[in-house]
Every structure is written in C-alpha cells, then in structure tokens.
C-alpha cells in the first residue's frame, strides 16, 4: 500500500517536473530515481514526495537543487585506471591519425574525467588538435566542472589512479593545492567547451571521434539507453570510439548493434572503420 502510494507520488513528481520545467525523467531507471527523489523529499520537504510537488510548481528556484539532487555526480580522476590506460594505449594512437579530434564527454558531472582526458591527451601530445565537448544537463555541476576545484583529500587516490593509468609525470604537475582544496591547472580547460546538453531530449551536436559516457546509462531505462546509444552512434565518425562505464554494456540495445568491442571488459567499443556512414543533416 505504502509503496503503491509512493509510486503514485513519484509519478506525479516526474510529471510535474516535465510539465512545469520540461525535464523528462520518466525514462530514468525507476528504483534509482525513487531513491533520489526520496532523498530530495527529505532534504527539501517534510519527507513525502507529494509535499515536494507544490513547491516544485510554485518555486522555480527549487529546480536547480532538484536537478542537482536527481543527478549522481560521482567521479574521480582517472577512475578505473585500466580504462584510461587502454584509452592511452589503444585508442589515442588511432585517434592520432585524425587531423582534428573531437571528444564528447557526455554527463561530465563535476568534470574530473574531463580533466583526466585533457591530461591524457596532453601527455599523448594530441591536446592541441583536440576539442572536448563536456556536457551535462545539470547547470550547477557544469559550473563546478568549469572551476575545477576539488577537495584535496582526494588527491592521493587520484595520484594513484593517475599512475595506475600510466601517467608519465606527477599529477601534482597539473594542480595547485592550498588549504584543503586543489585547483586543476586551468590551461587544461583551453580546449574544453562546457555545455548544457540533456541526453533525454537533446540531439546530436557534434562529430565525435570518441564519446565517453561513463556511469550514466545505469540510471536510464532501456528505451532511454537505446536512444542515448543511438545519439552516440550518430555522433561518431566511422571508426569512432565509445567508452562506457565498467558496469554498463551494449547488450539489449538495438542501437548498439553496429558497435564492435575493442575491449569489452573495459567497455570500449568502436564503430566499424569500413561501415558506410554519412552525416545526418
């Protein structure tokens, strides 16, 4: 009975969000979404989701914290080092053969991976001809990502990750730490465009040679996963790479049929180099 009630509340909440603000969360994985909304209800209202709804309707300023609460910006630099090592060893050398390299980091959260990528590219000597599009639907996260300021206590883990991912120098070369904070070298941002892009609603906006979308699909339902993968497919050049989170896979998504595994364990995939793809105007 209670859970039924909560499902109704959740449904109403999702519809409110869509009707009032245009954000469509109906295609998100329901269990995770419910937990996030419950947490929001605890933080912003008296604990029930339905109490959150009128506030969402009448207080537009509540949208930002709600979006913030609905997104799960977990990341670290060089997270899953083997993935970055694989990117460094197997993907970047191939990308090097393109005159310009576009990388789309979809769901960049607080930007740790964007900066990790930038470091990777810098060390591979490719950064000057690379452009990274870092997108997220959460404006607050984007702002944080642009600042590039993180808690210094993570630096140790990140350094370990960096070396495990085959880093050539010291991660400290890329940041300056003061007080309890560390700020990443803003020069790393010089080829990054941070932009708001909602995978639920928005379309292809660039021609990408590599798409990174890690630990985003797990929050999506299957149809939405399929749509997102189709976006990536349409965005990628032939022979372009797709890198997903280590717990995500392309199984069950019809849109992913064309991808070939490069390293299935690390979730790195590739569009066939010979497949005939042309632009979709």
């Amino acid at each position, binding site marked *: 009975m209670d859970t039924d009630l909560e499902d109704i509340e959740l449904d109403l909440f999702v519809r409110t969000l869509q009707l009032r603000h245009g954000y469509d969360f109906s295609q998100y994985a329901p269990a995770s979404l419910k937990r*996030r909304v419950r947490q929001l209800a605890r933080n912003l209202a008296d604990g029930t989701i339905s109490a959150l709804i009128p506030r969402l309707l009448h207080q537009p300023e509540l949208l930002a914290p709600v979006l913030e609460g609905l997104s799960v910006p977990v990341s670290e630099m060089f997270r899953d080092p083997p993935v970055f090592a694989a990117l460094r060893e197997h993907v970047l050398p191939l990308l090097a053969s*393109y005159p310009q390299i576009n990388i789309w980091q979809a769901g960049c959260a607080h930007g740790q991976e964007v900066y990790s990528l930038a470091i990777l590219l810098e060390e591979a000597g490719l950064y000057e001809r690379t452009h990274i599009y870092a997108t997220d639907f959460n404006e607050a996260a984007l702002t944080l990502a642009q600042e590039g300021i993180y808690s210094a206590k993570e630096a140790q883990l990140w350094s370990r990750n960096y070396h495990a991912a085959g880093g050539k120098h010291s991660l400290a070369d890329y940041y300056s730490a003061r007080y309890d904070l560390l700020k990443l070298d803003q020069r790393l941002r010089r080829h990054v465009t941070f*932009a708001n892009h909602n995978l639920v609603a928005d379309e292809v*906006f660039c021609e990408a040679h590599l798409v990174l979308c890690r630990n985003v699909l797990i929050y999506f339902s299957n149809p939405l996963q399929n749509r997102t993968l189709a976006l990536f497919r349409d965005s990628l*050049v*032939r022979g372009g790479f797709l890198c997903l989170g280590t717990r995500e896979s392309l199984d069950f998504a019809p849109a992913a049929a064309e991808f070939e595994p490069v390293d299935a364990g690390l979730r790195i995939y590739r569009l066939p180099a010979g497949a005939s793809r042309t632009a979709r105007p």
Partner: protein
Amino acid sequence: MSSSQTTFSWLANQPMQRKIMMAIGMLLSLFVLAGLITLKALQQESLSRQQTSHTYDVQLQLSKIVQIAQASQIGARGYLLTQQPEELQDFQRANGQLAQAVEHLRALTADNPLQQLRLQQLDALSKQWQQQVEQSGVVAMRNIRATDPTARALEERRLQIDAFRHRVVKVTDMVALLDQMAATERLLLTQRNDALDKNIATVRAIAVASLILSVLLGIGLIWMTFRLITRPLQRMTELMTRLANHDHSIVIHQLHRRDEIGAIARALHVFKQMAIETRGKTWVKSSTSTITSKLQAVTDYRQFADLLTSELVPLLQAGIGVFYQYDEDSQRLALLGSYGYKQRRHIDTSYALGEGLVGQCAIERKPIVLQQVPDDYTRIHSGTGEAVPRSVTVLPLVLRERLLGVLELASFNHLNELQQHLLDELLPIVALSLENLGRALRTQALLQQTQEQANELRHSEEVLRRHQDDLTATNETLHARTIELQEQSQRLLASEEELRVQTEELQASNEELRQKGDILNQQKHVLEALQHETQEKAEELARASQYKSEFLANMSHELRTPLNSLLILSRSLADNREGNLDDEQIESARIIYDSGSSLLRLINDILDLSKVEAGKMELLLGDYPLVDLERTLKRTFNPVAQEKQLSFTVTIAPGLPAAIRTDAAKLEQIANNLIGNAFKFTSEGGVRVDIARPAATLALPQRLLGTPLLAIAVSDTGIGIASNKHNKVFHAFEQVDASTSRQYGGTGLGLTISRRIAELLGGDLLLDSEAGRGSVFTIVLPELAADTALEPSVHARHDEPPTSVRLPSSSALLPDTIDDDRAHLAPGDTVILIVEDDPVFARILADMVHRKGYRVLAAGDGESGLQLALRYRPTGILLDVMLPGMDGWTVIDRLKSEPGTRHIPVHFISAVDEASRGRELGAVGFLTKPVSREAIGGAFERLLHFAEGRTRHLLIVDDDADARAAVRTLLRHDGVVIDEAGSGEEALTMVLGNDYDCVVLDLGLPGMSGNQLLERLADSGRIPPVVVYSGRELSREESLQLRQYTDSIVVKGARSPERLMDEVSLFLHSMRSGGGAASVNRGIEHTLASDPLRDRKVLLVDDDMRNLFALSKVLRGWGMQVTMAQDGQKALKTLAEDGGNELVLMDIMMPVMDGYDTIRAIRAQPTFARLPIIALTAKAMRGDREKCLEAGASDYLSKPIDIDKLASMMRVWLHR
C-alpha cells in the same frame, strides 16, 4: 578692645575705599594749594620783569630822542651855515622823527603822569625850538634876495649870528628835561627790582611750607593705613592660618565692623564653624571606618565583640562597654565581649527578650539612655579607684529589621552630640559587619565542611588515582585511537553525501545488472513458452502432416492418371511425327512435356515423403549381403561415372559381417539417391562409397549408441554444402540454396526421404561437408534392423525410382523468372545479374544486356538473386528494391558483407526513390522507374566502369619515393593496380587521363600543392575518391578546406597505416562515393529557376564538419551560394569581410564562442540588425527556443534538421 572700637568708631566703620579716597584727597588738596601759591608768585614775578623791561624801553627811547634832538640841531646849523637844502632836509627829517619818538614815548609812559607831564614840556620845548629855527633861520635865509654872494654871505652871517644869539630855546634845555625823565625811570626800575626780590622770597617760603606739610600728612596717612587696614588683615590672616592648621580655638574680633574686615571676620567665623563640623564628621567617619575595617578583619564573634567595645569605649570616653549577641534560635541575648567591665554577681551574661534594659532595648530596638544611675549600679574601675558612671546607654544592633545584638555603654559624661552621631553612624555598619561576619563564619563552617569532604574525596581520589594510573596506559592508547577514530569519523562525515551518492551509483548499476538479468530471465521464459508452443505446433503439424500425407497418397493416383496422358500426348506432339508443327509449336510441346515430367517426379517424391511421414511405408526385412549392395551400386552408377568422366569406387572394410538385416530395397533407394546427388554436384574428381564401421568422429545420435552399426559413406568432390545449410538440406523442398535447383534440378525431396527411410531402418543419415570441399553423406544402419512391424501399407509402392533425374534448367519453383544464360556461361564472360520480380521489365533488361553482348543471369526474388551472385560472381548487378521475400536493401547489404561479392558493383533500378540510402549502402547508382533506355544504358556503363576488369586503380601521390613505396607495400593487394605520382602536376595529368578508384594524396608536394590539386580536380569535375595521407598535423581551417573534397584524412603516425588501409579499402570495395564531388549535384533537379533560394547568399556556421558539408551540399543543390564558418568568431569575421550574406544558419553549441553569443554580437552591429538568422540547435529542451529568440535569432530549427522545413523557413526569411 572697646577703646579701640570707640577710637575708630567712625573712621573704622568707613569702607576701605572711602578711607583710601580720603587719604588721597588730602594729599591732592595739599598739592593744589601749594601749586596755586607758586603760580601766584610766578605771576607777580612775571609782571615785575615786564615793568623792568618797560623801563628799559623808556630809557632807550629817551636816549633816542636826545640823539634826534641833537641831529635836528646839527641839521639846522648845517643849513644855516651852508644853506644846503640837504641840511635842511636833515633838519626837517629829524624834526619828524623827534615827533614820532615823543609820541612813542608818550605811549610807553602812559601810566606815569609825571613823565607825561615832562613829555608835554619836552614837546613844547621842541616845537618852540623848531619855530625859532624856522623863522629865524630858514625863512630868513630864503628871503635873502641878494644875489651878490658877498652880500649874501654877509647877510647870512648876520642871520646866523642872529639866529644863535637871539634864540630863546636851546637844545640843552631839552636834553636836561630828558635827563630828568631818565632819572625818574631809573628810580622806577630800582623800585621794581626790589618788588621782584620780595616776591621770590615769598614763593620760596611757600614751597618749604608745603613740603613740610606734605611729609607730615604722608606719615599720618601711612600710620592710619596700618592701623585701619593692614593690622586687622594681618590678624585675620593669622587666624585663617591657624584655622587651616585645625586650630579651632581661635577668637575672631571685629565681627561687628561694617567694613571689609568685618565681612572677612564673619566669613572666617563661618569657616571656623564649618571646619569644626567637618572635623566632627571626619572624626565620625574615620572612627567608623577604622572600627569597620578592624571589624572586617575579625574572624569570630568574641573577637568582634572585644574589638567593638575596646575601640568604641575610648572613643566615646566611656568607662565600660558590654556587647550582647542575639541568638535567634534561642531568642536570647548572650554576653559576648566587654571593656573595662568587672562582672558583678547579679549581672547576667544572658538575657531573654524584654528582660532588663538589655532585653527591653532588644524588643524596642531603640536606644535607651539612663542619666541618674544608682550607686550600686555598676562601677568604673581603674588602678587608682573606682566610681559609679553617671550615664548608661543601651543601643540595639539592628539590620534590616533584624536584631543582631545589644551594646551597653556606661560613662561619666553624657554622650555629646558628636559621639551620639558616631554611634548613629557606626551601629548600622557594625550590624552589617556582624552579619557579614556571621555569614563569613557560616561560609567558613561550610567551607570547612566542604574541605573535609574534599579531603575525604581527595583521599578516595588517591585510591582512585592509583587505579587510574593503571588505566592511564590503556587510556592513552585508547585516546590516540579515539583521536584517530574522530578524524576518521569526521572524514566519514564529510564524505557521507559522497558515499551516499556513490552507493546510489552502485545501487543503480546493480539494478542495471539485475534488470539485465531479469530481461534474460524473461527471454528464457519466452523461449520456454515458445518451445512449448513449438512443441504443440510440432505435434499439430505432425498431425496435419499425416493428414496431408494421406491426402497426397490418395490424390496421387488421381493426379498421375491425367498427367500420364498429358505426358504421352505432349511427347508425341514434340516429336512431330507428322511434321506439321513449326519450331515454336514443337518448343511449346516440349515445354509441356518437360513440365509434365517435372510435375510427375514431384508428385512421386511427394508421395514417397508423405508415405514415410504418414508412417505408411512398410519394411521388408531380410538378410542383405554387403557384396550384393556393392554389386548393385557399381552396376547402377558405373555408366554415369563414365559419362561424366568421374571415378567411382565402392569399398567394403574388412571385419564386417557378410550380411546385414535390413530392407534391401529401401537401403538401395537411399544409396542411389545419395550417389546420384553426389554425381550431380560433382564436376571433377569422383565419387566413392565406403562401407565400414562408423568413424569415431561421427556425431551419432544418442539412440544409436551401443548397437553394432554399419556406415555407408558416400563422398564426392563436388560443390559441397556450407555447414550452416546442413540441416536445411534434409528439409522438404529445400536445397542448399534455391539456385541449386536451377543448376542441378531436383525436387529437394530426395534427402528428406532418404533420411526418413534411414530412420525407418533404425539408422540415420549424417552429413559432413564444407562449401567447395565436397560432401560426405553417411548412412548409419544397425547390423540388425529391428522389426518395427510397420503396418503394411494399404497403398501400392510407387514404381518410380527414387533418385532424382536431371530436370530442365528453368526451375519449376521460380516460375516467374525469365530465361537466362547460366547454362552457357564461359570464363571471361561479362555477366550481368538482373534481380527483378517483374518479368516484363526483366526481359527488357535482359534484351539490352544481350544486345551489348553480355551474358544475363536473372532472378525473380532477392534470395535467389543473392545465391546467383554468390555462385556466379557476376560482373555487375542490377537490383530492384521491392522484391518478394528478401528486399533489395538486404540483398545489397548481404552482398557487401560477403567478401566474395563485396566488390561487385550494384546499381539500383527501382520505383522507390531512395537514392541516398542506396548510395549509403554502397550502390554505384540509383535509377528511379520509369526509366529511359538511355538511363539504363548509363547504368550499365556505370556498372561496367566500376566492375571493369575487377582491378582497382589506385594512385599514390607523394613526392618522396620511399614513402610511395611504403604505401604501395601497405596497399598491395590482389586486383589492385597502383600508380604513383611524384608531383601535383603529374598527378593531375594522370587522374584526368585515367579513372582511379582512389587517390592517396600527400599534401606537401613540390610545385602544385595537394590542396591546389584537389581544387583543380574538383573544377574539372573528375575528382576520384581521395584519402589524404598527411605527414603533418592539420589546422582546423585546413581540415575544413579539405573536407570539401574528402572526409578521409589520415595523419601519419604509429597507428595510421591501419586507418589508411581501412579508408582506402572502403573506397576500393564498397564503392563509396568519394567525398563531395559525387553527391554535390544531388537535389538540384528539385529546384526551379524561379525558386527564391536560387543564387541567394547564405552563411552557414557550425563546428560539426559533417553537418557543415552535408548542409552546404543541400544548400548548394538548391542553387544557393554558401559560405562556411566553424565557430562564432569566424562567422563574425566572415560577415565583416564578406558583405552580401542574406541569411545566417547558426549552430548553437560551438566551442570558443557559442551561437547565442554570436547572434548577440551580430545583432549588436546596426548593419545586421535585420539580417535573418536561423538558429540550428541540438537542444530540444523547453526554453531553448526562447533562448535563441532572446539572443536575437529570427527563427529556430532543431536538429536533426528537416530539409523541407529548412527550405520553407529559408524561403520565408529570404522572401523579397
């Protein structure tokens, strides 16, 4: 004192100012008097001096007159003597002067009558003299008329003598008179001088007198001042000094004087009173504070009482002091302390309230004073004696209405006012001190108690501490650990949210996995359900199949009968025994016969099959010697082998039983069928039959294991069967592929029937084969077939042999397909495969192909088309899209995915207008029906162009020979002819002269650069697919430039050869249209010359190069002039430099400067205020449209872009 008072009664009472004024006034009057007298004397003196001087003047005048008189006399005498007129004049002048002088003198002596008188005499004398002279002398002289000088002289002489002789008045008289006058004056002078001397003496006397008077007066005044002012003031000062030194015994006089001294004296008196009062107060205060401070230092009650009495009693000059303390608990007053008190018998040391004076005082809380004390009251003792006090004072000590104690004092004197005052002042403070003391004592008691408790505590603490010491060590460890834990917990707290979020992520991913698992589960369920369903279906089918078989078995006779006659008649017609038929009729008859024969075979096979499936086939088991089998087979097939020039062997392995128990006829039927097939599909090599035990590798079905088996293996060296088709061949009406029937005939039922029979015999039919490697069919039989005791068939066995017989090439299964040349193909023929379901159009196409001298293969559906292509590898394929079964899209996809066929060019001819899709899938061209012959001709050309010789022409353009060699090595491949060019010019000539399938171009060339080469090629319209292989990195602008010609740009690097191969093979094998050139013209047909878009200038801004070029192609296709920019800044620059842009298509998400900012920047320029800007955005969220319009966009189009919508939108905005 009184005498002085009386003495100075008047003067002393005058104010001091007046006194001073009087003294000064007296002095002033003295000075004025002296001055006046002196002034008077001086005046006198001055007058005297004036008179003296006047006297001198008179004397001077007198002597002057004497002179003048003498002068006059001289004159007169002179004239008389000389008669000289001058003398006369002197005389007259002297007379005049004399008169004046006399007049003057008269004026001077006007005050002196005596002198005046004398003057009158003088005057008369002088006048008389003058007359005399005049008359006797002067007139006479003049009257002398004698001219004779002598006479004259005489006359004169006479006259002279007359004059002198006869003269009455003489000058001497006058002088004498004047002397008299002078003497008078001298006398007068002497008198005056005497007066003057007298005057001076008077003045001197006055001066001396006034001096003496002044000195006396001054002395008097000084004395008076001393007496009246200084001395009283001195006295006052002395008094004041004494007062200041606290001498209060001073006596002040002159209090009643009314002058200032009196006022000072009165004020001093007031001061004296005040000083006395102040001293009293000070005494009270200091005594109070002394006692108070001493009392405050006291630590117990007795000390307090002793101190109080001992301090107070001397101060009050009393003899005895006793202090009683009031105890509230017992309501009694207890003697606490005393001074000079000798205890008497009847004096209690304690009183109740109201008891005695002390008690009374305590009740009333008012002081009680006793004056006349009886003798035996108490005594004041001293060493020298004792006496009864005269006064007893009992005072209560009250604080805030609370009685604290009573103080009793006994003294010889009554308490004076000051002492009383002291008591008034002191007692409340004493009370307060007493209470404070009480409080302090209580506090102290408590403190002590506390201290005792503390001591106890300390003691126990000691014990505890000993325990604690033991614990401390452990504790410290614990503490360290606690700190560590605290830090950890803080860290934990800080990352709580993070953790929660991470948990969220984990949960989400777990859910994702679970979901995937669920899906798998569901799929499993679905599969199970399907399986179940399938089983049911299978059973249903089996039943249906049985019905069908029975039906067919029953029908066979009915069918065969008419067919038979049909066959016979048609055969005879075809033979044309009468010779009355023309060729066409004969051909028709032959077709009827052939078709009939096919039909008959089909019916037979169907019957067989249906019989087996219906379980109506009976077995006749018996021992069958293997040598019989061998003999039979050889006999049957040796002729076939000879005819086909193939080898044929039958072997029997040793160790086999001589005979097996089985149905010989059935076994032969299977063997015949298999061997027949083997021959049918084998064109070289041979067929062998091996009878042996089944090989260990043979995959035997479960049911056969454990029984002695025999294997009859039929091997051939024919076309073989792909492993994925192995099952298919056993299905009814199935062959390896549909095209098989076309080449080899057969109903496709033989294998099905064979397997069924083998199964009936208790064995199985197995297949081992690979495409192109021949096949091995193995009949596995038990040595002893079980008598399955099948129902003897009610139907007669059919007579026809079960082996299939060669059929005419046109398949009965594909009735719609036209004839083709598959039977007459020779190597080197140019073969075009036509896949078309419309026979009329297929035939037309076939005719055209034939007319060009090529061979035709035709298929009516996709599947068979695909098979034909696989089998015959035609030179080119004309493909329809709408086909029965597999459509054209699938066919081309399959062709392109098959290595053997991917190189075959495919040209679509279809009613469907989806040219772009066709091209995407790799077709070389696309024609939309209806088509003209010319268009078809073009399609053939195109096909043949791409198919030409199967060899690909590749051009490598690089100035470095080593680099060319490296690329050549890399791309060397069968069927690829590689040319090389060392310069752009050379390459240009080569490309224009040849058709290259692909050009690998290095940009850095001497002379004409790679870019220029591409430009020239594009201009010539003959740009082949180009792969740019660049030795250096390219800027964005360079990439953009190149993208016009190709999107295959490979930058040299470690892994670039791999990509170069990919890109090149893409062009060589999938016939991708190479970059822009091939598709640029697409869509031009759709725009009319009058289209408002034609020749309009549009600026396209997008960072996505694919989009940029795809859109620009479309726009150019509409006849528009397109300028491209890759980001906002470049767009602004382009707008500024290149005027005439009539519309801007603006992407929103761009690096460097996004679309919003760019639109704003454009709008900020007045020139572009009205420039139409259409925003193109991938953003589809609510509010994105508004954002675009807000930034200044004219309109908004979301990606993916609907070209029609874009066109109409642009028409609106470009409407003139």
